[in-house]
């Protein structure tokens, strides 16, 4: 008879089944450790994928009042739609608060795989220009790990996930283990050629966790387009059908869905975690899972929320918080700037039957680089995502037969949107809002974040530079944006349980282990010391694999 999953002590309890939790479960279970993987949401099945359902089959064609009513925050993200909104949290059940005049948008999924089901799939390495940025420009703190230390784990993750991309030899964006790159459109190639000629900057195809050839039992992309609604060929990387599947297949991983973790439980032995307590999402029963190691991969702010909610008499300010840094140094890439225009000389007509490439182009950071000049108005930098192609002209003027014709003739559009580094600042923080609880009675977060002057200066420069590069590419009617979007909008929340070598200034050590509680780990974006400007998921996964490798080693030496 199967053992009651709650009556045993696991080697590791992993909280969260997304990009990082999936990797932690896979690594540990395949190493022979007994793992309990907890997910706050339900299981997910390929039967519910909707990527091949035309919009006209939706009752409201993506204007559903149910989405407006139950997901007013979540629907600020393009990926939350009438097709799939049940994957996203119900905002009415999952509140958080912000100070007056300081909005923050927090996008969350509670379903097996979490945000890996709907992520943008852009996968970029960071370099020592990021990990050691503080040593180079004097702002903030270095990471306690270097690129050389993380490189082998990037390799492992890329080889397994399958990242399509092009080798560029760019000093700011290390190359990786790539599958063949996707192709660029004519407009994108023209931009690449002219930007290189005029500015010396690199324009490359996006490095995406989307397969361009069959890989690890998954099929190559069939270019249908909307990955965020699921993928019946599993061509983009999402954890339920890759890492979590492997973890379960090992026979060493017990998956517990609908387990809304409220806090970490401490042992009677000092400074030792015993497991976690969760509320069953459906029955509201409170249960406990015990583990020799507790690993939080719940998403940066959720992991920190669990630690803050784990206060006891011994740990009055949240668990693993002797430094006081827990909750602080919240980051999210600054977005809101870029440029767009028309390549009027291009006569390609839009084609409804053209393969839909689920990827764009990327321009790596070119400001404040080792080989370039120091910018006078800001530190760090930004990268662009963008694209060019013929599109139907739904903003054609007039009406009647001429309007129908103009729509089909289309426009050849080109655009660039910047993602800028968000500086780690003590003043950007989360804390528990003791007057606000979620539907399971768990105290909610109060999120206090604003972008600062450096982020605004980055966006101003990104708008102007974007316009200059599009102009060089031959674009007309260039529109410039240099706004600073509401924090959270990049959906790249990072920090709040930072790594560091000094226990007085950081929450975790270089192996994501809490300084204060040696069998407690945070292996997600909460551990980031700085944000860089690259999309962070690849680095989060590499950091997780590195930390798990270290933990497995400690288990083997019986140190846990």
């Amino acid at each position: 008879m199967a053992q009651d999953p709650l009556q045993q002590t696991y080697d590791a309890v992993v909280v969260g089944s997304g990009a990082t939790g999936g990797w932690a479960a896979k690594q540990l279970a395949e190493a022979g450790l007994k793992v309990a993987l907890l997910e706050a949401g339900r299981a997910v099945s390929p039967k519910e994928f909707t990527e091949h359902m035309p919009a006209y089959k939706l009752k409201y064609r993506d204007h559903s009042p149910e989405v407006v009513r139950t997901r007013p925050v979540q629907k600020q993200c393009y990926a939350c739609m009438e097709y799939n909104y049940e994957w996203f949290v119900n905002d009415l059940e999952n509140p958080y608060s912000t100070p007056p005049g300081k909005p923050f948008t927090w996008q969350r999924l509670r379903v097996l795989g979490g945000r890996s089901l709907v992520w943008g799939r852009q996968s970029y390495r960071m370099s020592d220009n990021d990990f050691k940025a503080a040593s180079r420009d004097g702002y903030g703190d270095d990471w306690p790990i270097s690129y050389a230390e993380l490189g082998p784990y990037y390799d492992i993750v890329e080889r397994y996930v399958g990242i399509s991309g092009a080798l560029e030899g760019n000093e700011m964006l290390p190359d990786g283990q790539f599958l063949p790159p996707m192709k660029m459109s004519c407009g994108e190639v023209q931009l690449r050629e002219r930007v290189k000629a005029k500015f010396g900057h690199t324009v490359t195809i996006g490095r995406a966790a989307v397969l361009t050839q069959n890989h690890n039992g998954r099929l190559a992309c069939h270019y249908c387009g909307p990955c965020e609604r699921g993928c019946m060929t599993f061509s983009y990387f999402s954890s339920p059908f890759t890492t979590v599947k492997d973890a379960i297949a090992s026979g060493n991983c017990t998956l517990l869905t609908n387990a809304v973790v409220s806090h970490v439980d401490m042992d009677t032995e000092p400074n030792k975690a015993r497991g976690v307590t969760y509320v069953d999402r459906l029955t509201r029963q409170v249960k406990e899972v015990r583990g020799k190691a507790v690993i939080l991969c719940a998403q940066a702010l959720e992991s920190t929320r669990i630690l803050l909610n784990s206060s006891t008499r011994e740990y009055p300010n949240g668990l693993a918080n002797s430094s006081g840094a827990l909750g602080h140094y919240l980051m999210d890439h600054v977005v809101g700037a870029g440029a767009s225009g028309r390549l009027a000389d291009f006569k390609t007509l839009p084609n409804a039957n053209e393969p839909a490439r689920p990827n764009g182009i990327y321009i790596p950071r070119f400001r404040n680089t080792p080989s370039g000049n120091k910018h006078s108005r800001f530190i760090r930098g930004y990268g662009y995502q963008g694209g060019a192609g013929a599109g139907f002209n739904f903003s054609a003027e007039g009406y009647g037969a001429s309007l129908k014709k103009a729509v089909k003739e289309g426009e050849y559009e080109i655009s660039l949107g910047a993602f800028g580094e968000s500086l780690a600042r003590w003043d950007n923080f989360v804390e528990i809002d003791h007057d606000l609880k979620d539907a399971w009675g768990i105290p909610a977060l109060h999120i206090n974040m604003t972008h600062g002057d450096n982020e605004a200066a980055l966006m101003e420069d990104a708008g102007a530079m974007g316009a200059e590069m599009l102009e060089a590419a031959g674009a007309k009617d260039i529109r410039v944006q240099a706004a600073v979007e509401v924090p959270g909008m990049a959906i790249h929340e990072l920090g709040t349980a930072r790594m560091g070598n000094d226990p007085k200034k950081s929450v975790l050590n270089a192996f994501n282990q809490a300084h204060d509680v040696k069998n407690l780990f945070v292996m997600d974006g909460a551990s980031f010391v700085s944000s860089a400007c690259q999309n962070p998921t690849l680095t989060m996964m590499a950091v997780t694999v590195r930390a798990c490798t270290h933990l497995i080693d400690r288990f083997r030496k019986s140190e846990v």
Partner: protein
Amino acid sequence: MKRREMLRASVLAGAAAALRPSLATAQSAAQASELTPAQSGVDGSKDLAAPGWKPLFLDEHQNETLIVLSDLIIPATDTPGAKEALVNRYIDLVLAAETHETQRAFLNSLGYVDGESMRRSKAAFRYLSREDQDILLHALAYPRFGSGWAGDTNAVADPGHSHFEALKGRIMTAYYSSQIGEKELGWDGAFAHGPYQGCEHPEGEHK
């Protein structure tokens, strides 16, 4: 409106069945109430064409005016237009679920067209001759702005044009998201059209 969002159909079911992981069966099935209608496979496209359809929000005059207006903005040519695509029914459905403020704004725009029609021709828009309807619509669609000189502070947007654009936006969204609209754009109904080919021109010869 994102074109890419509108273009999907089913061709790879066999491949998916071959790949479907045992994981799905190992886990408890999702509760039906926690799937969206789309995730449950509901086809919501048939409701609007149901016999005996009645508007949920618009009154008869407003509905008829919207039909006339949509037929002028996206007429049947060698392809069907907005009237055949039942854009009035879709717009009514969405309006019925929207906020009072949004509903009021829509009725205000529709009423503006009637108001202008009454002022000019002493008859509601739907009762004008096609020629007079066209004259009025032209005036709203191509308004005269200020002098056109940069910095001209007298250049004020024509409210009639704003109302026209609001109505046109609704009609365009409804039309091009319909099955007729998909066909109008040339979509063949398939979701996979082979790998993305990209540019193969020599340097400097892109087009």
